[in-house]
């Protein structure tokens, strides 16, 4: 774990940082999803601008390497494997990134499980990022469109421009684990441009613009916003796409959010009485931590299913019979910065088990049955439907902010074997027929005896049968 700094930057700060970094990397282990971070940043000047954020990353065990955007030898892959675990893209000074960072390569990188944090600024959104955003169904404003809000701006800094927006963290929702809704009176300073999101299920907003914010063309529409690009809560300031393989791409509309300046800034909303320190440091750490998989990673430790009523039934058999009673268990853990903790389903949500063949036959909630120090076991029981076929136990738990759980476990459900039906004597309606058979047998035996041994009576018995 080395801090890559050029020699001319061997200033005191760098020295200090180096030692701090050395110390921190000693105590903290490598993060769960790997610690190799590539930070694409244009000039060393910029890296000092964001040193607090970068140091914080190093402090959490990441090995951050800074590289300029146009470097020729830069590559995300080697021999088909990714050589970085995470990429942070700072806005480039000049036109775009180098050939190593085309949208195709970035998507290939996420396909291999790498996470990407993209920081943009309104004056510099390279074509690569635009193209990538189009693929993600994120709408980016044209160059030099900026977001302003006449209700929630910082009055301390340059109050005339209203471009430092003070956003609140997202509201706490009972139905989701929102890792970004911390203290509700936190103010997050934002200077940049918002973007819009499509309706794709993989997109999640991390920070939404206030209702009165809007984005307009700062070059043309200075008199009045006759054609604003986007406005209100439909506009996002920070959002993310969690791909199906759980790789995360986060897009931030303001690189300044992550700067030392904003971390230390004191801000004040119009109408409020005293200035307040921004929560940018905490929020940006949350964003990075979530993007790089320190939070919101849920894993399935084990899945068990077995017959409910039989104590010695084998676990996870391949075959059940219709109308069996089965119990299904799933053990889930959640990663929290540096350790696995029991996963809790939010109170307004439900972890559901489906029992499906083409369509779900059951969709029942899995309820926590036991909790250990680092995992929760969720259980449910039900009776297998009276339909044979190849069924699947499916836990399809996809929620914003946490990794997708889509566990599918196929079992065969067979019909009753020939000797598993109710025996006829247990069915009262069959008694008549059973008696009929018994009567026939007894009558036949009696007839045989008569036929064999009956002497002729006064009336000739049986003769009529032979003739």
């Amino acid at each position: 774990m080395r801090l890559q700094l050029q020699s001319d930057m061997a200033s005191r700060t760098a020295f200090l940082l180096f030692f701090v970094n050395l110390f921190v990397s000693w105590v903290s282990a490598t993060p769960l999803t790997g610690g190799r971070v590539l930070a694409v940043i244009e000039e060393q000047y910029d890296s000092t601008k964001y040193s607090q954020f970068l140091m914080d990353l190093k402090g959490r065990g990441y090995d951050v390497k800074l590289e300029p955007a146009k470097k020729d030898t830069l590559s995300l892959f080697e021999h088909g494997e990714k050589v970085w675990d995470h990429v942070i893209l700072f806005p480039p000074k000049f036109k775009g990134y180098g050939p190593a960072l085309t949208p195709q390569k970035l998507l290939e990188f996420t396909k291999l499980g790498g996470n990407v944090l993209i920081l943009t600024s309104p004056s510099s959104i390279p074509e690569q990022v635009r193209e990538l955003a189009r693929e993600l169904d994120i709408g980016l404003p044209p160059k030099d469109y900026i977001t302003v809000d006449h209700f929630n701006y910082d009055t301390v800094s340059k109050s005339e421009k209203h471009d430092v927006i003070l956003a609140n963290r997202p509201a706490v929702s009972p139905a989701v684990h929102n890792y970004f809704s911390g203290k509700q009176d936190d103010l997050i300073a934002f200077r940049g441009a918002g973007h819009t999101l499509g309706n794709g299920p993989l997109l999640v907003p991390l920070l939404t613009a206030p209702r009165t914010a809007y984005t307009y063309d700062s070059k043309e529409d200075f008199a009045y916003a006759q054609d604003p690009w986007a406005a209100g809560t439909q506009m996002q300031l920070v959002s993310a796409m969690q791909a199906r393989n759980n790789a995360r791409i986060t897009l931030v509309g303001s690189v300044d959010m992550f700067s030392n300046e904003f971390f230390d800034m004191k801000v004040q909303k119009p109408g409020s009485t005293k200035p307040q320190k921004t929560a940018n440091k905490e929020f940006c750490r949350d964003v990075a931590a979530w993007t790089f998989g320190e939070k919101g990673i849920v894993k399935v430790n084990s899945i068990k299913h077995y017959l409910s009523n039989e104590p010695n039934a084998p676990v996870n058999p391949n075959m059940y019979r219709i109308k069996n009673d089965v119990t299904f268990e799933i053990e889930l853990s959640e990663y929290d910065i540096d350790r696995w903790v029991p996963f809790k389903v939010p109170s307004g949500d439900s972890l559901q088990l489906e029992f499906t063949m083409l369509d779900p036959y059951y969709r029942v909630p899995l309820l926590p049955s036991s909790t250990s120090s680092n995992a929760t076991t969720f259980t449910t029981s039900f009776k297998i439907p009276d339909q044979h076929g190849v069924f699947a136990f499916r836990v399809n738990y996809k929620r914003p902010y946490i990794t997708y759980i889509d566990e599918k476990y196929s079992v065969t459900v067979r019909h009753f074997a020939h000797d598993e039906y109710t025996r006829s004597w247990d069915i009262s309606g069959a008694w008549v027929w059973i008696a009929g058979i018994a009567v026939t047998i007894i009558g036949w035996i009696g007839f045989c005896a008569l036929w064999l041994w009956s002497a002729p009576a006064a009336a000739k018995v049986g003769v009529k049968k032979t003739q």
Partner: protein
Amino acid sequence: MRSTMSSGMSFWTFFVLAFSSFVGAASGAWTFEDAQAVVAAKGGKADTYKFSPTQPVKGALTLGPKDILKISLTVKEDSKVGRPHQAFLLVQEPESKVETFFPLSVKELSGKAKVDLSHKDLPAFLLTAPSLSLSLVLGSFGESPASIVTIGGVEPSLDPTSKALLEKQKQKDIGEGTTVYKAKDEIRYVFRADPQSPPKIITLAFLLSVLAGLGGLFVVWFPILGGNLSHLPKALKAAPISHPLFFASLLSLEGIFFMYYTQWNLFRTLAGMAVVGPVALFSGSRALREVRARREKGER
């Protein structure tokens, strides 16, 4: 792309300065007056509703498919007419809080602002909502506080066919988005009803009648028709092995059937039959030959 932030900055500064000098050092809030909402139907009929920052339109306006909602007002910065940088009409679906905006066109000198709203301006999601709330947001750079006021509500009225079309469009817009990320409705399988037996009392009645049939048969055979077993000694004397063997093999055949019914499997049954069957066949032919001999003697 060559123009950097700094060049934009200078432009900015210029604009801000110019703008603030125009507005002056006004400290009052942005507001409006002479506001009215007109629902203009195609035939020329128009209903006018007045409203003000403190008095929204009472009741919801109904917006038919061909109607146009025309909102006009005069924007004031405190008491002077002015043109704010932001003058939007916000249209919100109250339940989901999904909101879209329509910028007003504001005349610079008179502060006269207006916006038209009709069905074709509204996205399908909003158009299919039962009611929408309208707000007006006015704000600009400088010191004057911005304002946001609710000015009323709108109920889009749709005919069923276009409603169905719009619902389809809405589903297409949303895609699978809404179906993920939420707990779905619970499903519990409903089993087919088990076949029912008739009431036991009826079963028992029939059972008794079947058994009575057997009794009746024996009654007919023995007391009435005079069946008897008095030839048994004679038969045993004539064929001492085959008679008992035949009868026993018949009984054991029935026994094998019974065992198959209760516990044996097919192969065991077949083996049993293979043993007993030939015995029954051979002893039976002997025994029956003896019976025929008796008949031929006229003893039957």
